[in-house]
């Protein structure tokens, strides 16, 4: 199998690169001391915030802490799939 891999078959991403990504993630979690419950609360607040600004959250909210080595800090990256609410919907939800 290793012989075949030499010719470019079955090429996979190096496990060290994958491990490096995993390590970044686990260290970020550890350094930021973020527990799952806290993240869930954070997600809920983000959804509320989107709602306040007229966005409907239409998918899974993801929050990924990432380690920034330059200044040894944690960066929280949030991915929030949203759709802008129609004007009529906005007024309705605002009770107008």
């Amino acid at each position: 199998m290793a012989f075949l891999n030499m010719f470019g078959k079955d090429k996979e991403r190096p496990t060290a690169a994958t491990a490096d990504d995993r390590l970044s993630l686990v260290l970020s979690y550890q350094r930021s001391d973020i527990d799952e419950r806290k993240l869930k609360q954070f997600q809920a607040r983000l959804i509320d915030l989107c709602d306040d600004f007229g966005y409907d959250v239409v998918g899974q909210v993801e929050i990924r802490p990432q380690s920034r080595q330059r200044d040894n800090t944690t960066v929280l990256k949030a991915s929030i799939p949203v759709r802008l609410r129609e004007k009529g919907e906005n007024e309705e939800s605002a009770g107008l």
Partner: protein
Amino acid sequence: MKQKSVAITVTSGKGGVGKSTTVASVGLALAKLGREVCVMDTDIGLRKLDLMLGLENRIVYDLVDVVEGTSKLRQSLVRHKEFPTLGLLPAAQTRYKEEVTPAQVKELVDELKKEFEIILIDSPAGIEGGFRNAIAPADRAILVVNPEIPSVRDSDRVIGLLESADLETIDLVVNRVQPNMIKDGDMLSVERVQNHLAINLLGIVPEDRRIIRSSNTGEPVVLDDRSLAGRAFNNIARRINGEEVPYLELEESSLINRIKRIFHIA
């Protein structure tokens, strides 16, 4: 007190990464350089340093005996016959870590500083009482890490604990490095490990089957000229001694080795 005596705690968080091997090897290498060195085993109940240095038959008293006043410090110290500037303060084998407090260990190390220039403290695995005993007297620390996620994550946690204990000088030893695996993309590189942990790199030690042999025979690899790990530990000792020593070239370059690797023979 010896001028500028220093207590260095060798720690890791995770077990089995090579702390005791590092302490025994670097301790002996420093003694070879003529330094007065004491290696101190704080892994009470699970001592190892005596075996690694081939001194297990000469232990009468141990660290707990000194703390309890059953013996004097000098009676508990075991001197190496070939390198008499090296002393071992063994841990008790049939007692518990809780029987000693950090303050008592610190007091003991202060006593040792009167006789030795360097005190290398072998910390037990984990971050509980034994770890706290080992870091209490430390002036600086050496963190031994294997290039794998569980070891690096634990080390990152330990760095936080060392920093909160006001230990500012923390050096990194990356142990059990396999250059072939790094080259194939199957092992984290030393550079990546150092970048993640962001501390000073003191040494890189390759995986070496002679290490297992040495712990069975009680002769540290620093006495074996053919051992690459032995050379790496000797270099670490020289760096602690203040010399500037380049890192070892670990890459295997012979054609036979490359062919062996391709066919998964090596």
